[in-house]
């Protein structure tokens, strides 16, 4: 099943990846060749096979409910692109 340009644009939007006009045809072509590789899976009979999410099939360890972190705001914000009054700045969020 081949992806169309509009689907590629939709995926790029979901992933918030800006693509230039020029990149779209080649991206579409490459994605289609990768999907061609992936689609080989469909030939495998996996009826009744439980999906495997983690190789070891271990279970989650729980952490004691204790506060051990302290305020490191200045250190963490030293590498931020834009901050003011302790807040990270972004273009206006419209709801």
């Amino acid at each position, binding site marked *: 099943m081949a992806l169309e340009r509009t689907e590629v644009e939709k995926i790029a939007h979901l992933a918030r990846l800006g693509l230039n006009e020029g990149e779209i045809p080649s991206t579409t072509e490459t994605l289609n060749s990768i999907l061609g590789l992936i689609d080989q899976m469909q030939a495998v009979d996996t009826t009744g096979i439980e999906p495997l999410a983690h190789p070891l099939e271990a279970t989650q360890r729980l952490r004691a409910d204790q506060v051990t972190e302290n305020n490191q705001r200045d250190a963490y914000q030293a590498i931020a692109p834009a901050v003011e009054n302790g807040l990270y700045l*972004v273009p206006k969020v419209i709801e």
Partner: protein
Amino acid sequence: MHHMTLAEIARGLADKQFSAEELTRSLLARIQQLDPQLNSFITVTADQAMSQAKAADARRASGESGALLGAPIGHKDLFCTQGVLTSCGSKILTGFKAPYNATVVEKLAAAGAVTLGKLNMDEFAMGSANESSHYGPVKNPWDLTRVPGGSSGGSAAAVAARLLPAATGTDTGGSIRQPAALTNLTGIKPTYGRVSRWGMIAYASSLDQGGPLARTAEDCALMLHAMAGFDAKDSTCVDQPVDDYLAALSQPLAGLRIGLPKEYFGAGLDARIGEKVMAVVEALKKLGASVKEISLPNMQHAIPAYYVIAPAEASSNLSRFDGVRFGYRCENPVNLEDLYKRSRGEGFGAEVKRRIMVGTYALSAGYYDAYYIKAQQIRRLIKNDFVAAFNDVDVILGPTTPNLAWKLGEKNSDPVAAYLEDIYTITANLAGIPGLSMPAGFVDGLPVGVQLLGNYFQEGRLLNVAHQYQQVTDWHTHAPSGF
């Protein structure tokens, strides 16, 4: 001094033949002189290295000892190092001086290792040629017109060129073993969960595992011993004691049962590599091993399954690179969407964007079952193959790569062709078992690697087999000319 292995360095430092400071100074000079040919370092941390070396000498003077005390190493540039650029080979981490240390970095520092710098890599560990780095491709010291493999290509090139005795790497689909094979090194990907992933910037969380690249199995044992172990900060890290890898090395191989999967020797394998692998088998037989043919029938499905699971996890893992809290942010975003799309569009390279898009698609509504669930079912089939195989054999042996190191740029235009290079390595990541690659000789002057796969937590056995082999062969001692 640069030809010494970690084990030799440890003896030299213990015998006071030289100090860590002298050794560090000499290697820093060598890096400065030779690395421009290779581009294996993204950052050289000379000042920090000198103070770490002096501190190691002081610790030794005060009576401390330890195999890695004063040992020079480098870190793949996806291990967070506090206050030092941690780039993942990506433009999007421009200016990202990590605010903390990875557990692996902490552990090696605690053992007294001296970090000379951060090593080049495929962007976000996505690649098998080390050509996708924002900091430029790394060259193979065995032939500067060829790739060193990837994604831990900087680690491999630096160790192969004797700029460092050992380095850290990570392996999501072969990223330690494949570059080790293409540069004549020994490298081990441990069992999933053996080494903490805290501070190791994720590509695909359920597949990623850190491990060492070095010139000998013994050095890998020294490194892995320091790197492995439980970490409460990583929920997927295993709370189980670390085996004594060093002690395991000397175990005789008599009685060792080796499985040769017939699927590893079929079409697609460079026959000359196949011959080298069979020569290794012969040598191991002489050491007392028995050999039988086995089958891993689902191996052929590993690549499609891997190229769903890894991109799916990556598409989510890489969402945090959004230009808000750290890293690259586009100029003058006009609105929020523009900030996201341009920061990410400009900050990520082509291969990363491709994989994010494949993963986004595989997880999207209507495709999830056909792609993601299907891939996880195949993942179980692959694991089941190994579980069955390890009922009959102790280790599985085969080629690490189907081909020799290829020319820079040769596979750039066809990502699918590059993906196929991972055929022998990715099954270990899908199943979570340990895998090791070791030098097995040369074809046309280019190194060939042989891969050993073991059952869960059998790192000690893999290192043992490699070490015993290295006692009777000298492929691992060959150095590229000019280095």
